């Protein structure tokens, strides 16, 4: 099933050091079209550093990043990246925040607004166009940030702990919503979490990242077809995955 045509992102043997300290070593991962893959690991394992390399913000010491077969190592602007905080710019309306990646890429302001505005419904943000981020709840801000990420580029999104700041109830609502919207907009996602439940619930595959320097130590496939039943997190199967993952960490 995983033919090379399905492969959207490949990370090959990436190593990154800061001075003497090697933060990640020889990381190779892949992401197929429409997949949701999770990087699970304790904080300090270099997950965010890896994302900074994949997004092109950092130049790796070794290895490369391929997007649809094209080498994008050290070239920002190709892969959309949502950093840990939602980082909606306080001085722009929600609409202008969402349109920002388009404007940065050189689209005319009016055109970018129109293009971004057309997506508000899909992201459940109707009526919030003219609001400022400070007027939004945590969940809404996250949706707006995801919309902006989606408009950023190329069908691949890197999400760095996108739901970690939300309370439990909002979080599980956002999980459901994200799985739905992702199918609709055909977004392939690589995301970071340290929450095991969240990883099992959302992922098609999970990479375990650990050690210092951080390395990929394991990979497991969550072989439960999507959409998954609402009570999936209460099933025996879910617990089995959880036990496996806990033992891996």
């Amino acid at each position, binding site marked *: 099933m995983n033919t090379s045509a399905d492969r959207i992102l490949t990370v090959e043997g990436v190593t990154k050091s800061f001075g003497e300290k090697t933060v990640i070593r020889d990381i190779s991962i892949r992401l197929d079209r429409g997949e949701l893959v999770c990087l699970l690991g304790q904080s300090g394992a270099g997950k965010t550093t890896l994302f900074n390399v994949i997004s*092109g913000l950092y130049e790796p010491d070794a290895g490369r990043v391929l997007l649809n077969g094209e080498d994008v190592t050290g070239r920002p602007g190709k892969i959309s*990246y949502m950093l840990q905080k939602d980082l909606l710019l306080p001085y722009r309306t929600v609409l202008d925040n969402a349109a920002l990646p388009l404007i940065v890429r050189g689209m005319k302001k009016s055109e970018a607004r129109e293009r971004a505005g057309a997506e508000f419904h899909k992201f459940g943000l109707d009526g919030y166009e003219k609001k*400022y981020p400070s007027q939004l709840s945590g969940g809404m801000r996250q949706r707006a940030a995801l919309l902006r990420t989606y408009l950023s580029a190329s069908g691949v999104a890197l999400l760095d702990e996108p739901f970690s700041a939300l309370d439990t109830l909002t979080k599980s609502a956002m999980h459901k919503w994200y799985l739905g919207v992702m199918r609709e907009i055909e977004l392939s996602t690589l995301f970071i979490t340290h929450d095991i439940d969240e990883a099992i619930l959302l992922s098609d595959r999970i990479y375990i990242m650990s050690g210092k320097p951080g390395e990929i130590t394991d990979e497991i496939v969550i072989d439960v077809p999507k959409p998954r039943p609402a009570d999936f997190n209460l099933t025996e199967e879910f617990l089995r995955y959880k036990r496996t993952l806990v033992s891996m960490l």
Partner: protein
Amino acid sequence: MTAKYRNITNKLSPVVALALLVGVWAAVCGFGAIPASMLPSPLAVGRAFVSEFPVLLRHLKATLTESLAGLALGVALSFVFASLMDRFRALYRAGYPLLVISQTIPTIAIAPLLVLWMGYGVQPKIALVVLTTFFPITVALLDGYKSVDPDEISLLRSMGAGELQVFRYIKLPASLNSFFSGLKISASYAVVGAVIAEWLGGFDGLGVYMTKVKKAYAFDKMFAVIILIVLVSLALMLAVTALRKILTPWERKV
């Protein structure tokens, strides 16, 4: 005490304090505690203000022109310097101490030099206003640029933004708040700076008027022009506040 009542009291208290002050002043003059030739009564000052108004207005025009021109030039220069200093760290390290030192030189001390160099025209007045307004705005802008969350810059760079786009979409709007705080201070400095420069000679301006009425010991006119300077400074500060409201709409909507 209800919030509304407290609000009214808060707004009323400075008015009451001012009225009290004027009342004491009137009483002191009324009882002849200080001779009218030394301290004119508020009423006499009011009369002078009205009778001299056309003359004051002419001088005000000159002062205001110098203040605004100097302020505009000061803002433009601060903008260029602060942006360059933010962009090049070496320039920041070299320039910042000089900026601070330049501010310890009293305005009144450099004003005569400027007059000697530039003559009695408007140039030394504008130059002095530039010198006094430049520092607060530059420092405010530098602080504003530095207040930016580095993650916001990473985010923009991950979108493929260049240096100029980061400046335009993040640094500039983020610095506006701090910029306006600096501008508010500078706006009041601007008028005072122009007046001080005019003291040292010239043809028009509130400072020129002040030296003339001083020589005539016309205390009532002295007070009238001081009040006018206060009013104009206040008006400029209010204008800055209004401009800030228009240009930073996100601050209002919470």
